[in-house]
């Protein structure tokens, strides 16, 4: 099952940090503006279980 985490109204200045953290957890992230200074982040994980550390570490760039 796909696991999806949506966070609304993320300040644009924080988007790179939040996006990097989700990606480190193994998620595919999409960002969509939801206001003049904020965005909605949708993180999609490949399974219902969050990726464990090894997977996260492998994704660290």
């Amino acid at each position, binding site marked *: 099952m796909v696991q999806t985490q949506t966070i609304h109204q*993320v300040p644009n200045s*924080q988007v790179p940090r*939040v996006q990097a*953290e*989700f990606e480190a957890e193994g998620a595919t992230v999409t960002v969509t503006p*939801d206001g003049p200074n904020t965005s909605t982040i949708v993180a999609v994980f490949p399974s219902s279980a969050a990726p464990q550390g090894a997977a996260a570490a492998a994704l660290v760039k």
Partner: protein
Amino acid sequence: MGGRAVVRIKASHLVRKAKLGLCAASVGALLSGCVIPDQPAFNANLIMPPQAISPPAAQTGSGGAPSAPAPAASASDLPAARRSTGPVVLGEPFSCAQFDRLYPTEAAVGSADNDQVMKARNDCLTSLIEEIDYAYDRYEAVINDRIAAIETTADLGGAIVDAAATAFTNSATKSALTAVGSSVTGAKSAFNADVLYQQTMKLLVTQMRADRAKVLAEINLKMSDDIQTYSMGQARSDLNDLLHAGTLVDALATLSTNTNEAAATCQNAASATKATQTGQTAKSAPSSTSASRPGATTSEQCGAILDSTYSYTPASQELEALWRNPDGSFNEKNYDILNNCITNTLKLTAVLTGIINGSDDATRNKLLGCYKADPQVAAAPTPTPTPTPTPTKG
């Protein structure tokens, strides 16, 4: 691959169908009819009446109000291909048949341009999803209309069977639904009719919506995968799941208490996901409910779709510092400890980054407490404070 390929079916799905009395042949009939060139594949008639159902005769006895006309689809609402009378024929234009013409074998898929194959697959999916949605809308309208007409004075179970038997042309499916209807009829004799009406039928319809929204969200996400990751066979299997998610059989199988919340959450998440994938602006957050409850989702129905509003506090920073080093790298050991707390100790339906950025301090503090109580952390030697140089006397 190709239309004659054996489509992979989730074993659990088949087992579930078998338990519910749906023979494998009916599922096979669905799949064997799916995406065969020049055939009206994925037959919506299995879940839908071939045309708008006539309203039942007016019922006036026992205070029952005359029934409203059945919500026959307006011709102006239908795509041109469907405006003629007669059965709903899926796939006009039938882009899935085109997929099989273009890519009849695995080798053809492998040698083709990935973007073009993905587009052909997604065109197929979009087309059939539209058809299934349309069929489902009609199916639900029929059920709702029958229930509204019957009120609580008529035979609810009979109505379900009647609507379903009219809608379904497949004999095996009819049999299964007849069994379902019989069970509902039996339930009616055991429970107050009002309760049955208010709870069972509303929940059944809402459950169908929730199940469909969940499957749709998954399909929408997978459509961004390449053909190697998400093959046409997998797409067909998902379409089959979508089709079955809109049936009373599946709704009965998955029905539980928080269905209304599940539908809303799943649909919001599905909308947000679809919007982001299509480049549209996502809907604003339904903030107060989910934002204040991290991982507060409808885990039993929708499970894995979480929705919250951004929140970042000192507790967030503390959690983040455990996982993210100042140089931007990540601490794998702490990540594992924190995730163990989330999953096993606190049993939250959440992900760490979601808690850090879209949660509340009560949850964050619980997670911090769990982390500090972890044996690996508690047993770690306390860092020796750097000795302060003793001022020398001059």
